[in-house]
């Protein structure tokens, strides 16, 4: 059998207070007040679906042999590149083997489950060397004062699949494909266009999901009363329970949609909820996942005895605990580039990227791979032909050395109000790695007053710069507090 061997999750640190959003829009859309409870996750300005996917995958791959992963399926409806393999960026950031398959799966809210089904099929067919990584991530854009702005959230989930039962044995899947256009986003459009909610609820969820669930139960020889966890992303209150009941699953088996304090992370959300479920499930639990979107994907898993032994990851539950409430709605608008703000002349810098340089240094830039000298053992970034150790200086002795997961502390820092950044002041400083090596790094996810020399940091994959003139963006690694301050969320 095939199954899930590990899971990981990522939710951005910031949690936008929904009341702050509703208050800003009370004059134009007083109806939003009805949704003004709790928070929604909000990506930092330097996060997108690619960076969040990398973080979820790192959580998932903690301790796993990355060279053994033979395939990557990346799902999102908000890929930063329409033609450049986004999964290729994720694979390089994770230092996966270059001799592996990768695919971007997009264009539907069920892209996450579609990727998962593809991944499971690949492993079952003996592809990917028996190990495949599936990551789903979304950073949906919504018009100001829309319901989607209130309901959606940003986040990612990752699942490692293997050719054995793992922590959750795969029992089967079924897909229904229907051109049910509850919403769409046409070519070149920034935002979705949606149809009437009552129609989506009654003709969409209430009819299409039960049809898919029933087909899967029949196919897999299971009955509804055997289902322990019913996973179905949906922002209509009570709808998961209604659908569960309609197929014979006890309503209380419907999982919390996490919409209250995270929001719905688009195409990633079914996997986000699945990871959250795996963090609660006991061996023998049957987990049914249903994802709605121009039809429906359903998958069935059974938790195994290995599940409780899987540790050393934050998952979605851990990620949700690492939150800081944000009450400044303007910050959300700027971070999501929903308004045009004054950047000053320093913001005019041309961020054209030499693609030749980027390719030549891809392991360094995208993977944070430096070097370690075979002769003296000194870890160093970047990797160079001549060792930096003044007592060594050996030539051509450095092996690739990955800094991404190494413990770091701040040696020196400043909060710079002069440099252009989307979120001033620009915090940066020299970070030194416990096992050797250092470099001057941008900081992220820090607040003024929180930084001091000696503080423990962890490296995170983030957007370094936007090249708005050419529609390119470049990624690199930044230092973030290892134990971020959490408050209000």
């Amino acid at each position: 059998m095939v199954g899930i061997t590990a899971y990981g999750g990522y939710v951005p640190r910031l949690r936008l207070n929904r009341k702050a959003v509703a208050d800003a829009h009370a004059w134009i859309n007083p109806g939003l007040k009805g949704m003004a409870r709790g928070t929604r996750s909000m990506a930092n300005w330097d996060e997108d679906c690619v960076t969040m996917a990398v973080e979820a995958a790192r959580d998932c791959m903690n301790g796993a042999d990355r060279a053994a992963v033979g395939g990557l399926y990346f799902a999102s409806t908000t890929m930063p590149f329409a033609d450049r393999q986004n999964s290729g960026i994720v694979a390089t950031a994770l230092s996966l083997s270059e001799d592996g398959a990768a695919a971007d799966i997009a264009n539907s809210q069920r892209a996450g489950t579609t990727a998962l089904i593809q991944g499971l099929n690949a492993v079952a067919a003996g592809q990917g060397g028996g190990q495949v990584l599936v990551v789903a991530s979304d950073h949906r854009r919504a018009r100001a004062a829309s319901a989607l702005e209130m309901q959606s959230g940003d986040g990612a989930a990752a699942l490692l699949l293997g050719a054995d039962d793992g922590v959750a044995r795969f029992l089967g899947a079924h897909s229904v494909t229907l051109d049910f256009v509850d919403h769409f986003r046409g070519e070149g459009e920034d935002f979705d266009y949606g149809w009437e909610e009552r129609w989506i609820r009654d003709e969409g969820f209430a009819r299409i999901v039960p049809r898919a669930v029933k087909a899967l139960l029949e196919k897999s020889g299971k009955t509804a009363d055997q289902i322990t966890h019913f996973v179905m992303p949906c922002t209509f209150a009570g709808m998961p329970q209604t659908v569960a009941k309609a197929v014979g699953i006890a309503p209380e088996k419907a999982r919390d949609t996490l919409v209250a304090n995270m929001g719905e992370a688009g195409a990633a959300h079914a996997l986000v909820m699945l990871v959250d479920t795996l963090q609660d499930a006991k061996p023998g639990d049957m987990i049914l996942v249903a994802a709605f979107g121009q039809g429906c994907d359903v998958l069935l898993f059974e938790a195994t005895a290995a599940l409780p032994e899987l540790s050393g990851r934050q998952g979605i539950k851990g990620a949700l605990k690492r939150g800081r409430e944000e009450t400044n709605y303007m910050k959300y608008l700027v971070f999501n580039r929903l308004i045009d703000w004054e950047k000053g002349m320093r913001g005019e810098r041309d961020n054209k990227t030499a693609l030749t340089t980027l390719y030549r240094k891809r392991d360094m830039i995208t993977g944070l791979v430096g070097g370690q000298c075979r002769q003296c053992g000194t870890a160093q970034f970047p990797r160079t032909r001549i060792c930096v150790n003044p007592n060594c200086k050996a030539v051509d002795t450095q092996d690739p050395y990955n800094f991404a997961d190494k413990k770091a502390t701040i040696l020196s820092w400043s909060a710079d109000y002069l440099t252009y950044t989307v979120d001033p002041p620009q915090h940066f400083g020299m970070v030194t790695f416990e096992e050797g090596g250092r470099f001057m790094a941008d900081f992220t996810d820090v607040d003024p007053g929180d930084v001091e020399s000696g503080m423990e940091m962890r490296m995170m994959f983030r957007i370094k710069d936007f090249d708005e003139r050419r529609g390119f963006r470049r990624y690199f690694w930044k230092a973030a507090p290892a134990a971020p301050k959490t408050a209000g969320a």
Partner: protein
Amino acid sequence: MATGIRDKVAVLGMGCSKFGERWEAGPEELMVEAYLEAMEDAGVETSQIEAAWFSTHIDEVGTGKGGTPLSTTLRLPNIAVTRVENFCASGSEAFRGACYAVAAGACDIALAMGVEKLKDTGYGGLPTAQPGTLYPLWGADGSAPGNFAQLASAYRAKHGVDKDDLKRAIAHVSVKSHKNGAKNPKAHLRKEVTEDQVMNAPMIAEPLGLFDCCGVSDGAACAIVTTPEIAKAMGKHDIITVKALQLALSNGLESAHNSWDGSYFHTARIAAKRAYEEAAIKDPRKEVSMMEVHDCFSITELVTMEDLFISPEGGAVKDVMDGFYDSDGGVPCQIDGGLKCFGHPIGASGLRMLYEMYLQLQGRAGERQLADPRIGLTHNLGGSPSSNVCSVCIIGAYQ
């Protein structure tokens, strides 16, 4: 066996434009201003200049690349002109090139000119540079103040200095320079300030406020050099010669090896040691009469006092607060106002520092004149604390 530069080169003449926001002047006008003063001081004609070194840092504004901007502006007689660029230490590089030429006997009279026209950018502070194609992909985004400010966090951590105590000490560094600059008619900023004003100024890069940062100025400075023998033959008295000329560059240790603690300039200590040896100075705290150091930021000046071995390690805060570097202190520092108040037209700064030391040694510094200075030191730094170019030059009377 190399014998060094000591007493092989004499400063024949120097000139310096007024520094500041010279809206009416381009780099060409600034160069001519410094050049005419230097030529008059040296008492030579254009046809006598046999080679020139030209320093300017930022291509995007100012003169552009190459040596022709200098050659064309001064209508030089088709001599060799070399443009040098070594960050903010470029001016010292131009001087070094000219000194080496006369010391080598390649020519009798050489010229060094530094210029920077910064106030054509459209905003305050330094223009942002494009350092190649690789660095922008990974180098941290930070301004010059943001990079130099990091000295403060590392210095505090190393020496256990309280945040407010260090803030006050660096404030005193700026107060002193403003006091000196007020007496300098060529200085950009000529207004005295109080410690409280400095400490309460808007934050630029934690912990550096507006008054912890030097002026961003337009300006040019020029030196004409020859050998002491030729200077004597020309009938010159009070000849000032170069006693030491040292340059030390980072090799990646500070930025990539964990042996550097971030609180000092590795290169400055090396350049200073070499310079003292070249100039035969054994006790710099006693023997150096005065200094012009690279006070791009107040914290830079404070840690430099230790890097030049004037203050003991960890002792700069006390010396600064005791007034040791004030105009009436043990080793007056930034007597012309420094980068802080004279201003910092990058390519010109190293030569501007020498200009003040030269005037002081010849007793021509007017209201700022110190009593009987014998040895003047300039310290000209380029880059950032973790990767930089440091020049130390010592000049004094020819015996």
